[in-house]
């Protein structure tokens, strides 16, 4: 977003008052190997999914479920059901990489910057203001899947 101090009062207040957990500490996992030897996965909160998947729902508090997007999915088969008047989607119509940088990650593997990529990426919707579902259910579920796929590093991209 633009720095909050540059926004109008209404939007600034809304974002400042958005319910999110206040934490005192930070969990930390140490890199076990260089990025050039690591397997990287991507998780997006842009609310995209395959066309055949159930859309994300505009529920009170937000829809904390997730969808699996195989890395080799054709971009034509991907659609975004998290929509809002609060953000512009025309940029992602022009270039899916703006919120889901699939091509950029492939290029980083080709250049040797990243070791390899996971077979699956994962998608949640954004703007969830009740995060308990993420913390208790869908977050740990995806973490288990990522670990079972041998993922070392997760790149998180919001929208």
């Amino acid at each position, binding site marked *: 977003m633009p720095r909050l101090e540059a926004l109008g009062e209404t939007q600034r207040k809304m974002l400042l008052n958005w319910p999110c957990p206040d934490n005192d500490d930070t969990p930390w996992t140490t890199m076990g190997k260089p990025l050039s030897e690591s397997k990287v996965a991507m998780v997006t909160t842009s609310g995209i999914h395959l066309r055949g998947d159930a859309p994300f729902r505009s529920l009170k508090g937000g829809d904390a479920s997730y969808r699996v997007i195989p890395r080799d999915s054709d971009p*034509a088969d991907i659609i975004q059901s998290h929509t809002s008047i609060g953000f512009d989607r025309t940029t992602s119509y022009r270039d899916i990489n703006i919120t889901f940088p699939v091509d950029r990650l492939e290029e980083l593997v080709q250049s040797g910057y990243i070791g390899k990529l996971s077979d699956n990426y994962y998608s949640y919707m954004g703007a969830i203001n009740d995060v308990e579902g993420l913390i208790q259910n869908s977050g740990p579920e995806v973490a288990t899947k990522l670990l079972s796929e041998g993922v070392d590093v997760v790149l998180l991209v919001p929208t």
Partner: protein
Amino acid sequence: MSVLARVYEERGLVTTGLVLIEEHAQRVKPPRMLSVPFNFGNTLGRPNDPEYQHEILRATFDLLDREEGPALDRFSPDIAPELFSQGSGVVRQDSPVVSDPSQEVDLMRPFYERWVQQNGGRTAVGLSTISQTDFKLVIKFLENFIGNKELDTPIRPEQFSVSHFIRYCVDDLKAYCFESKMYEDPNLSITQLHEWLWAETAVGSLIMRLAERMRSDNDNEVKAVAFGIAR
């Protein structure tokens, strides 16, 4: 996003990512995040600019070199992102080129179909599951809903409630209009595209009237959906 980073990191994964609201990340304290100043929906800054997107991604991956956290860096240079108008923020043209939304989507169709072809079949249209060639049926239903003549429609897939179906129809109509216009005039900015939709199109006018009708509904779900359609 920051919450997920913590959940994954607690389970032994190393995370790094991007945040759009730096103030939220300061509170949640994810391990590694790069704060970017772009608008929602524009996380990697510039569409179709691989070099710039790589610059951002490399700055994000550079955070993996840190030995302790939270590491919350700002991407520089700081820029002022382009903002866009809501429907209520523009002045509608007195004499729109086309006043019938059904006629308008017909006129847009050649541009839309060329957009899809140009983009390898990729389109944001499809949430409603109604083919764009049947948008006249959608528009007729929405007009009737506004006039309280029809509160449901046989074209609604049973897995969607009426209000969610309306929402997906509106999302599809917006995407169809934007993609048509982006083919017709590829150089329009985000601001210009949104102003065009709300000020100049019959579809934009229809959506505004629909949102107003839904906001006055007694059903809370309908009211909630109205909030996401137009303001």
